């Protein structure tokens, strides 16, 4: 029985550890599907995390904290959007600049909040369902954000494949010149996609600082923004595979913590390299087939759009 309990604890923790990756990666998936590569996830997540935490700890409550985290993500993503979409700056260096800026800005804003603690988000025990043996604790006793992330997955999948707007978004990402010729407003659509990505990165950061580990620490995202970027490639730009990848990585993170806890004779520092090494391995496996990546990647990804040329 104890073994089953341990496994259940690990699985439930995996779901939680994968949740920030789900938010950030689904947001970036929408951005990239519109043809824009935003490498600034890490910066937007950190800024979202610190802004959300500051708002919540100042007495405004956790809900406003999450809203503020999303707003912060949107604000940063709009800087990126203005530079790359309006001023046509190159997307790769601009995204890197956003990450560097976000790391600095978050550390700067969060300086006097490093020792503060909040209650964070408590799990909801769904009445009836959470009492089901085994499955109840695994599936129906999480914080609301875990459920929100699953709702987001359903929403994003529906939007991309079942709605007209999603079709337009994919068209813009596939070929902005054709979309433009048909009469769609490429730049406006891309702004919206970039802002959505920013909101989701902010939310992912907020989840870390308000629910996952209710506190603020410099660089607390620890590369999750980059892992989320890798997940989008791993998922070959498809939402269902993003979920799979996110929980896979959540699992690796949790496994590593449990191995540390179980007193394995491997140093904690070396164990904590596991998620990063796993990212590299997964990227290699998925990218090996170059045609597969080419076929699935949005055709206009990363390319600047010059209307009327």
């Amino acid at each position: 029985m104890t073994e089953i309990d341990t496994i259940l604890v690990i699985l439930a923790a995996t779901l939680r550890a994968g949740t920030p990756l789900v938010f950030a990666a689904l947001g970036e998936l929408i951005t990239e599907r519109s043809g824009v590569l935003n490498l600034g996830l890490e910066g937007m997540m950190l800024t979202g995390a610190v802004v959300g935490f500051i708002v919540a700890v100042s007495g405004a409550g956790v809900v406003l904290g999450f809203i503020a985290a999303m707003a912060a993500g949107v604000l940063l993503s709009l800087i990126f959007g203005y530079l790359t979409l309006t001023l046509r700056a190159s997307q790769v260096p601009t995204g890197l600049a956003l990450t560097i800026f976000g790391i600095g800005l978050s550390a700067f804003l969060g300086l006097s909040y490093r020792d503060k603690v909040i209650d964070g988000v408590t799990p909801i025990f769904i009445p009836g369902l959470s009492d089901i043996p085994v499955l109840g604790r695994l599936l129906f006793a999480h914080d609301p954000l875990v459920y929100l992330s699953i709702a987001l997955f359903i929403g994003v999948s529906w939007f991309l494949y079942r709605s007209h707007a999603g079709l337009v978004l994919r068209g813009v990402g596939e070929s902005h010149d054709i979309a433009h010729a048909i009469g769609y407003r490429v730049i406006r659509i891309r702004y919206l996609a970039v802002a959505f990505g920013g909101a989701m990165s902010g939310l992912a950061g907020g989840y870390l600082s308000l629910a996952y580990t209710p506190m603020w620490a410099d660089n607390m995202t620890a590369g999750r923004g980059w892992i989320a970027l890798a997940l989008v490639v791993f998922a070959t730009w498809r939402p269902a595979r993003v979920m799979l990848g996110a929980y896979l990585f959540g699992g690796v993170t949790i496994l590593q913590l449990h191995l540390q806890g179980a007193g394995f004779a491997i140093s904690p520092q070396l164990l904590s390299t596991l998620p990063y090494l796993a990212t590299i391995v997964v990227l290699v496996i998925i990218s090996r087939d170059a045609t597969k990546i080419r076929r699935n990647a949005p055709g206009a990804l990363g390319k600047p759009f010059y209307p009327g040329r």
Partner: protein
Amino acid sequence: MLLRLEPRALPSRWIAATSPLIAAVLTVIGGLILFAALGYDPIAALYTFLVSPVETTYGLSELAVKATPLLLCAIGLAVGFRGNVWNIGAEGQLTMGALAGGGIALAFPESESGLLLPAMIVAGALGGMAWAAIPALLKTRFNANEILTSLMLTYVAIQILSYLVHGPWRDPAGYNFPESRQFQPAATMPILLEGTRLHLGTLFALIAVGLGWLLVERSFTGFQIKVVGLAAPAADYAGFSQSRVIWVGFLAGGALSGIAGLSEVAGPLGQLNPSISPGYGFAAIIVAFLGRLHPVGILVASFLMALLYLGGEAAQIKLGLPVAVTGVFQGMLLFFLLGTDVLIRYRVRWHSAAAGDKPA
């Protein structure tokens, strides 16, 4: 009123040369606003940040000390960036260079040989190159995105460093601090100027500027790199190997970043500890772009970036501002540069109606 961009017939060389300056001025203005918003006297704060660190000769020497790792990393990165090879992992390559070179010093604690330091420098370069070879191999062999792999390897390198200084390489006489023992004199960089911390690494950085210039501006390999970067299909047509450009880009970046890491631990630090670099490898990306990927431009940009680091320290000591203000300035600088760069290829026209995004 919306601005509209009109393409220029030819890129403006005048603006290409001055836009880093414009970006710097805009960053200073942004800094004034930031300091004012935080309730400081903006002029006095900016003076503390940008002028007070370099008022003395010692301050100027410290500027060169800080510029050294930035310059080394950025020269190497620029080689790759020219060919659209996105090595983002200079921080990890720097760390591995420091480990490889520093490891030699720790392995020969009694050695006073004149060969020890040269061996450390070679090991530093090789360590950085080995770490850079991984993303190069994964890119050329398996098509894996080099931005993500080189970045992931940075996190791995930092954890390995942390493991070594917490464990096997910790100084037994160091009161349990996660630090290696201090390197002996034969394993430390000679000081160039008495009374300062200016060390041999700065000389290496200046040599790297010259070598970088020869490689990129004067060699056939450099020409191939530029063609691949500007027009990959043309490079294919000419039979230039993309893989070769990726390898050259990564190995140049790895070697110089490795030497940068070794120069830090055998120079100003004199030992290994968990935080050997305050993000030099990442700041070097900004330095490379700010310097227009040209070695001479990078030389100027590295000193500007070094000033931001010194300014952050001065602002922390004298104003009680967090040292992270440096990162905010770095980000602003790169944003403004990328924004003003648009003027190289476009003229700005003001229009009454939204014309840029209207469907045809």
